[in-house]
């Protein structure tokens, strides 16, 4: 039986209460909005790109603890990374939360706390909303992203 504490780990709760990089950074030159129509979660991800590299990243919006913590920790993990590196981290994160990899890749670092999401399949969309939005922002896709 899945355990609540596996999902709501202290780090996740803490990030949901005090999200990091919760702002539009100066020099933002790419952005995208993500929306989960099932639960009404809505986030904007802001990027200040320096060529191919994410110089600054921030986000704002409203959502559940999982989606907010995921957005917060995502901004920490991809800051300073190139587009390709950020994409690779999302791929690994996606594998983790969908239960396709049981041993979190070392590159994921602190993001490994989201492994419990795989026991709660309906919450995968919460954990990945900000990431899908990041991908759209990286592609310069101005269309809103929807999880549906």
């Amino acid at each position, binding site marked *: 039986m899945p355990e*609540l504490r596996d999902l709501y780990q202290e780090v996740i709760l803490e990030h949901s*209460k005090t999200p990091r990089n919760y702002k539009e950074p100066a020099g933002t030159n790419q952005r995208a909005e993500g929306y989960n129509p*099932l*639960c009404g*979660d809505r986030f904007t991800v802001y990027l200040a790109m320096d060529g191919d590299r994410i110089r600054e990243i921030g986000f704002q919006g409203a*959502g*559940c*603890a999982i989606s907010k913590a995921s957005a917060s920790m995502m901004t920490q993990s991809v800051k300073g990374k190139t587009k390709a590196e950020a994409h690779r981290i999302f791929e690994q994160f996606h594998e983790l939360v969908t239960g396709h990899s049981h041993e979190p890749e070392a590159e994921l670092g602190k993001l490994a706390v989201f492994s419990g999401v795989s026991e709660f399949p309906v919450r995968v969309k919460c954990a990945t909303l900000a990431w899908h939005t990041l991908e759209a922002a990286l592609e310069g896709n101005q269309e809103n992203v929807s999880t549906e």
Partner: protein
Amino acid sequence: MSAAAAVPIRERIAKPLVDIGFDVEKIRADFPILRTKVHGHPLVYLDNAATSQKPQAVIDALVRYYEGENANIHRGVHYLSQIATEAFEQARETVRAFVNAADAKEIIFTRGTTEAINLVAQTYGRVHVGAGDEVLITAMEHHSNIVPWQMLCEEKGAKLRIAPMNDEGELLLEKYEKLLSPRTKIVAVGHVSNALGTINPLKQMIALAHAKGIPVVVDGAQAVPHLKVDLQDLDADFYAFSGHKMYGPTGIGVLYGKAALLEAMPPYQGGGDMISSVTFEKTIYNKLPHKFEAGTPDMAGVAGLKAAIEYMNGVGIGKIAAHEQNLLVYATEIVGSLPGVRLIGTAREKASVLSFVLDEVHPHDIGTILDQEGIAVRTGHHCAQPVMERFGIPATVRASFAVYNTKGEVDALVRGIRKVHEVFA
């Protein structure tokens, strides 16, 4: 906030609990799914506004239909077809009596409330609504009573007008009356709000519209399972409801329409059963109610719906309503007094629905934690996004009651909410 909101919730809406001599355990034994265990806990099913569970009598009716009665209706001279036709038309009469329609031909079987409302919008609506006209709905409608009218208005160049509500989720009747204009061609209103539980003053609203010659379409999906609905007394022109929210099967619903209106309307879909003769030059449409029932209908669903109504009649709609009202009063009092809880929808007249939000915790997280305790509630916008916007929230947690729910289950909900506080402490 209105002045009324300053009065404590318990004093405002709590009504005395009424002892109705109701054996809820006996009722529960009729619903096999209630024996389910969820994550090691007994299922506490509080998502009845989404769909209710089915008693054995309804399940048996479906099986009996396929085991002993299945044949296509209205077109066979053979034994089974006659049996099936007879059963189908008997069910129509059962529905008629249940909602006190004047004539069984005013009962049209549809897939559900949504299809019923679309039927009216696409037939009556397309004939009577033109450029510059208005369709009036309320601020508390379900998407299924918004979007069909929006589509119609877009097609015709008409305008959708919205009658507002107050902070309690009560319709502002005076504003509603003022919005009834010479351009208003249709009023479409929910009898009971699915997101807030508000019971609208339907009889008054219909009388006000009729005084200006405007017909009223009612979304009754959340009313028929919980209240005695008397269509002749209400004088509704159209009234839609779904079987699956009233202990019946999914995929079957009802559109009631006054015979004179239905007679004058063009058909909705073309096909078999809705015709009386077809040549390549001309088709003559069938008489009511068949004119609106193109194609082979959901005959098993109709048999199940009949069984559901018989089940409700057996318990007594008055007793169902009183039992659910007791649960709502009890839940309002104890959930409403928990720290951090804000009730959404505190109308004086409510049925079955307790919607709330918790400070600092998103409804989706609450839903997951309650699910771990075996408690099924709805979290989200409840297909009523404008309602959420009105209250400035993205979503709510909604507990909704049915005849088989117990005070013990409300207590389990309270324990679940305490658990949420623990996790998020």
